């Protein structure tokens, strides 16, 4: 029931830098993507590729110093968040855009009862009084499937398991019915079975509330059944952008192909998992040329000399690669033979 009544979020040429002793870390450098209302967007990339910083930039929570948003636009429901005052952004945080973080163990305040942490949201943004906020907190916990919610609301975070804690985080994040939910590796810290439950929950709640979702993960496998579009990031840049189905079927970038190969195949025999060779680059000292070149299996001379172009492969499919078209064609060939 995705009602595509327009663009909710458009990130344009976002650049977020950190000033460190080691030089300027260009954690996010020229990232652009858009999210339609009611859609789910996946942001995928190896660790350190700039996914979290991108999303912290969206709600302007990049720690400053050392970080700063050096340029770009973040147009949310028609207004550029980067132009707003701190006070105006605060009214968007939690109310219209909310976040769930990777580690539910540390993301809730260990000193505060769950009830207070949830009530805080609705009292602030929805003007609830104590009783209303309390009832709302219980209702939210029931909605995310916490058994015996009315009793559990009086517990402290450490009295919940990891999965339950992430449910509490989700309840809190959704308590003001935000237009956008950003989930930053919401399942990375959890057991595999719990992971699936949490993803299922996010999917269900998304359908129920119509909230748009940005799902960040380093695991392409998570994105497959969850998202409409995928943005693949590497070294602070968007390497590929496409509708999810298209990206999985016809990847147009060697990096994406590497990521796809490293997704564990549940049907395959337990074997060695593929890993892209080498390590992500140091984004403080990028050489000219393609940042992925040293690890790329089809690297050519030009890759070391020139920064690659962002090639449009079809209406909604872009890839940052000198050989995007060739890679895309190979993918097409492979998919037709495998069919």
């Amino acid at each position, binding site marked *: 029931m995705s009602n595509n009544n327009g663009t909710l979020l458009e990130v344009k040429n976002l650049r977020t830098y950190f000033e460190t002793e080691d030089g300027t870390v260009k954690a996010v450098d020229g990232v652009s993507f858009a999210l339609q209302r009611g859609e789910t967007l996946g942001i995928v990339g190896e660790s350190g590729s700039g996914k979290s910083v991108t999303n912290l930039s969206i709600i302007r*929570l990049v*720690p400053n110093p050392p970080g700063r948003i050096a340029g770009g636009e973040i147009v949310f429901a028609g207004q550029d968040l980067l132009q707003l005052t701190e006070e105006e952004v*605060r009214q968007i945080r*939690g109310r219209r855009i909310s976040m769930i973080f990777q580690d539910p163990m540390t993301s809730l305040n*260990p*000193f*505060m009862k769950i009830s207070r942490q949830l009530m805080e949201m609705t009292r602030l943004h929805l003007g609830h009084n104590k009783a209303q906020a309390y009832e709302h907190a219980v209702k939210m916990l029931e909605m995310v499937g916490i058994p015996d919610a009315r009793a559990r609301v009086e517990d*402290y975070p450490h009295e919940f398991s990891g999965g339950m804690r992430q449910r509490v985080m989700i309840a809190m994040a959704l308590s003001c019915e935000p237009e956008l939910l950003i989930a930053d590796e919401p399942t990375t810290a959890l057991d595999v079975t719990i992971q699936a439950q949490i993803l299922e929950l996010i999917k269900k709640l998304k359908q129920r509330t119509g909230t748009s979702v940005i799902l960040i993960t380093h695991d392409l496998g998570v994105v497959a059944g969850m998202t409409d579009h995928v943005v693949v990031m590497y070294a602070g840049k968007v390497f590929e952008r496409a509708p999810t189905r298209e990206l999985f079927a016809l990847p147009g970038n060697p990096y994406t192909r590497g990521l796809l190969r490293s997704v564990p195949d549940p049907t395959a025999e337990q074997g060695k998992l593929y890993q892209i060779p080498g390590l992500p680059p140091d984004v403080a000292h990028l050489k000219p040329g393609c940042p992925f070149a040293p690890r790329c299996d089809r690297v050519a001379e030009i890759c070391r000399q020139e920064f690659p172009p962002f090639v449009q492969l079809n209406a909604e499919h872009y890839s940052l690669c000198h050989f995007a078209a060739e890679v895309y064609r190979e993918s097409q060939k492979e998919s037709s033979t495998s069919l």
Partner: protein
Amino acid sequence: MLRFIIRRLLITIPTIFVVITLTWGLIRLAPGNFYTAERSIPKAIRENIKEKYGLNKPWYVQYGKAMWPIVRHLDFGNSLKYQGQPVSNIIARSLPVSATIGLLAYLLALILGITFGSIAALKQNSAWDYASMAVAMLGISIPNFVVGPLLVMVFSLSLYWLPPARWGGFWSKSLILPVLTLSGLYMAYIARLTRAGMLEVLRSDYIRTARSKGLRERDVVIRHALRAGLMPVVSFTGPALAFLLTGTVVVERIFALPGLGNYFIQASLNRDEPLIIGIVAFIAITLLLMNLLVDIAYAYLDPRIRY
């Protein structure tokens, strides 16, 4: 929780006896005696004294004699120097002096230390931060016996605002200089603890969560960060208060205050065994109780801690 407290209190008792025994032993080991003064006394008189105080008996008899009244009635005996005065009276008389100055000094140190430490943490690497931490560094490096006389020189001997020394009662101007002198070091220490604690907490995930909820920075700090940020200060407060309440030797000396610390020095110089043991035992008990209070406070402040 109650069981924890009772257990801890029970452990306190043997601990105190170990402390007393060690003190008793150290007094014996050190050369000299309470009756050795500059002027030598005739042999006959010395023998008399030895006889009277049982000093010619074997050590275990002496030890038993010293310990028995303490074990039986918590009776620390009479001072040898202040003839006829029970040790408990001397402590009861001097404790309020030390405790008043110590408590005021610590309160001042807490208020200013937490304020400056928090400001420094919230405005990390700003002029505020550097200024607070520079002052704190000074506070830690300049010893009491320099700060005290310096304050006296300025406020008493030059400006004539405040009395330079002596005890003027529980609510008098004479408290100001000793309290200031005493609080400096603690203020500096608390400021640094607060800054470090707050910086650590402000970087934590749940503070990021609190910010992502759209809370005002003020609420983020007061509601979410302060409690965890001040835990190091809570731990520090136990031993610090124990020492401050039971008298600080240097400051009481500088300002000639009739507090426990001053009596302790006198007692040590005089080899006044019962008084030394009494004061040491009292300090040890206070320290143990304060640490117990800290642990109770921890359990109260941090829901994850259960005893």
